[in-house]
Each structure stands twice: as structure tokens, then as C-alpha cells.
């Protein structure tokens, strides 16, 4: 069965430090992977996606993600965190041959000044 795991409920990082939000997946066939961010009382906003090609994907707001096929991971990264990055982050994988997404349970990122 297809699934996505976000092993950390919360990640705390100091402003200016690099951040990583972890995601691992299990899917048959080629994975199509997505990251979304949710600010308080808002809907989800698309950050970036991996379909094929370069394993390092760049997205909105300075975020990037690294696809690692051997480790079945798609970790979200940013070189220098901002307080305004504090939000809930969701990893998702496309169910093969459909347009449906399977979401992880989310990771709350807290960036401290």
C-alpha cells in the first residue's frame, strides 16, 4: 500500500540555522512527491514537487527538497530559517495512475528568534 511518513511531529530550529523536515515514502512505481505548507487558519499552499530529473528540487520561499531513491526519502530543506517559516508542513505522494494524493501527518516547524 502507498504511504507517506513524517517521523517528527515538531521540529525546532533557531532563526538563521539550516532546517530539515523529514519525509519517507512507500509507493509502487515512480514516485511523484509534493511538499505543502499550512499557515495558521489557512489552506495548504504548494511549495515544490519532484516528478523526474534532478534529485534536488527548488521551490517557493527558498525551500528545496532532495529526492533519494535508495532511502525512499524526500526531505525538505532550507539553508537559513526565518521566524516566518513557522508553520505546518505536509509531504504527499501521488497514488500511481491517479490524481489522488496521500498526505503525511504533518510536521510543525517552529523557528525561534
Amino acid at each position, binding site marked *: 500500500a502507498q504511504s507517506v511518513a513524517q517521523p517528527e511531529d515538531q521540529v525546532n530550529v533557531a532563526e538563521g540555522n539550516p532546517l530539515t523536515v523529514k519525509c519517507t515514502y512507500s509507493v509502487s512505481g515512480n514516485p511523484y512527491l509534493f511538499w505543502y505548507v499550512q499557515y495558521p*487558519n489557512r489552506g495548504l499552499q504548494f511549495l515544490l514537487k519532484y516528478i523526474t530529473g534532478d534529485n534536488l528540487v527548488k521551490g517557493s520561499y527558498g525551500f528545496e527538497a532532495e529526492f533519494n531513491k535508495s532511502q525512499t526519502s524526500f526531505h525538505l530543506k532550507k539553508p537559513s530559517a526565518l521566524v516566518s517559516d513557522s508553520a505546518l508542513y505536509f509531504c504527499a505522494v501521488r497514488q500511481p495512475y*491517479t*490524481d489522488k494524493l496521500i498526505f503525511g501527518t504533518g510536521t510543525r516547524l517552529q523557528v525561534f528568534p
Partner: protein
Amino acid sequence: NAGVTQTPKFRVLKTGQSMTLLCAQDMNHEYMYWYRQDPGMGLRLIHYSVGEGTTAKGEVPDGYNVSRLKKQNFLLGLESAAPSQTSVYFCASSSTSGGFYNEQFFGPGTRLTVL
């Protein structure tokens, strides 16, 4: 271009009452979805539609019905609300141009409480 909008933003129901949540998108997207978001469970797909006049069940469809009479609108109905349906409901849409690679666009959500 408003994107995806949802009506209402908040609603409180009593057990057994019915209501309809409205989702509208102005991006001419073919696919539309209804999700519910509960703490610690991420987003779970309730129902979805691949085009006007079509609907299909998602992961947690029980207790909900949907209709898509117009391409731009997707309605979610609760015929007899239960406290277990207390949640935040999100609508999303996506385009099929280029294949199944496109991101979904989300509405702002509807916070529903069933007493």
C-alpha cells in the same frame, strides 16, 4: 482570480442536522477534491470528482455525499451530522493538463463543529 473559495468559513451544527459546504474554483480545473483535516491524522480524502457530473469515493466517504453539477462547483453534504464529523474541511482542485503531475490548489477551509 479568486482561486478556490469555500462557503461557509465556520459552522456549528447539532447532532442530526444537515448542511452543505460549497466549493468554487475559477481556474477551469477538471479535478476537485474534498478533504478533512484532523489533529495528528493529516488530510484524508472524502470524495473527489474528475469532471462535471462525476464523483467518486475517497478514503473516508461514509456520512458524506457530493455533487458536481457544474465544473466550477463541488458540493459536500452531511445528511445527518455526527460529533465524529467535527473537523476542518478543505476543498482542492487541480488541472489535468500535462498528466497527473500537477499540484492541487486548496481553499481556505471550513471549520465545522457538531455538538
